């Protein structure tokens, strides 16, 4: 019985130290949420609306970056029933629409089977591909593309 109490007490102590330690590390690094220092009751005003860059395609920042979308997409339906992106970007429609064809990697199922339609695991385009916007980074960072490092 006493061992039980000791183990529990030790457990609580370790947990408390870990929590305090982690908050201190957190505070030292100065990590903030996107709200910054504002409290919950404080309003910060709406963020700036960044105009979408239409027409000219942005280059990729790194090799594996999913290409950005150089046009508006907000009224396109992408759900369980339909994906209107495919109307132009799926083969063979892309030829007539003169639109970039979806990469062949998107026609392979998670188990490696080649498919005739876009794989279900790639169905929701805007999980990776987003409309391009010329704006500040949400979080300041020192990212450098590997191709710029040589």
């Amino acid at each position: 019985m006493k061992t039980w109490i000791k183990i529990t007490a030790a457990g609580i102590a370790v947990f408390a130290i870990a929590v305090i330690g982690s908050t201190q590390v957190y505070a030292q690094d100065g990590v903030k949420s996107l709200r910054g220092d504002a409290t919950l009751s404080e309003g910060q005003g709406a963020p700036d609306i960044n105009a979408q860059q239409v027409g000219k395609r942005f280059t990729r920042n790194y090799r594996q970056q999913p290409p950005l979308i150089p046009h508006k997409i907000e009224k396109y339906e992408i759900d369980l029933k339909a994906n209107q992106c495919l109307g132009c970007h799926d083969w063979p429609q892309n030829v007539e629409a003169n639109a970039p064809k979806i990469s062949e990697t998107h026609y392979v199922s998670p188990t490696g089977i080649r498919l005739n339609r876009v794989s279900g695991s790639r169905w929701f385009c805007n999980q990776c591909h987003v409309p391009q916007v010329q704006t500040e980074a949400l979080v300041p960072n020192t990212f450098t593309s590997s191709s710029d490092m040589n």
Partner: protein
Amino acid sequence: MSASNEEQTSFLGRMWKGLRRPTARYAMGTLLVGGFFAGIVFWGGFNWSLELTNTEAFCVTCHEMNDNVYREYKQTVHYSNRTGVRATCPDCHVPKTWVHKMARKIQASNELLHHFLGTIDTREKYEAKRLKLAKNVWKVMKETDSRECRNCHNFEYMDFVVQEKRSRNRHEEAIDKNMTCIDCHKGIAHELPAGIVGVDGIPNVGNPNMGK
């Protein structure tokens, strides 16, 4: 039996006789002026109640409309946009010209019937029927050369210069090929139905895994 029959015929007969007999009590002017104003009241009342059924507020009193298509439509450009101009349900789904409007209103009695039968009274039932319902609307819009779209949209006044390149190209192509709005613009105000894989005239945008 024969007595009541006689009474009925005599009542109808009296009505008929009364209608056929020229009146001796009222002046011609009274009848004409009275008839004229009664006409205004009746015709006005008819038109007023007809127009009452031609409002969005009336459409969404049916939960089939309110919970499915109306909710979807609120996400689209015809509900919310830069300039605040809206196209409500009847703007697209009821013709403006009187003859076509009356024909559509008579057709709507079928919709009333199915409302009371509960044909599409749940989301699941609605989704199951959506392809058929959508095809009906697409067919009508194709036949009328997208008449209701063209109440507002007109190729003549489209400024292709301010359009995005991809829409400019497509619209010029549409004029050349004598196409109509609904040929391309399916599912702009409501969600596309499940199972549109291989439906004529629609690019392959359906989910082949849906329903499997």
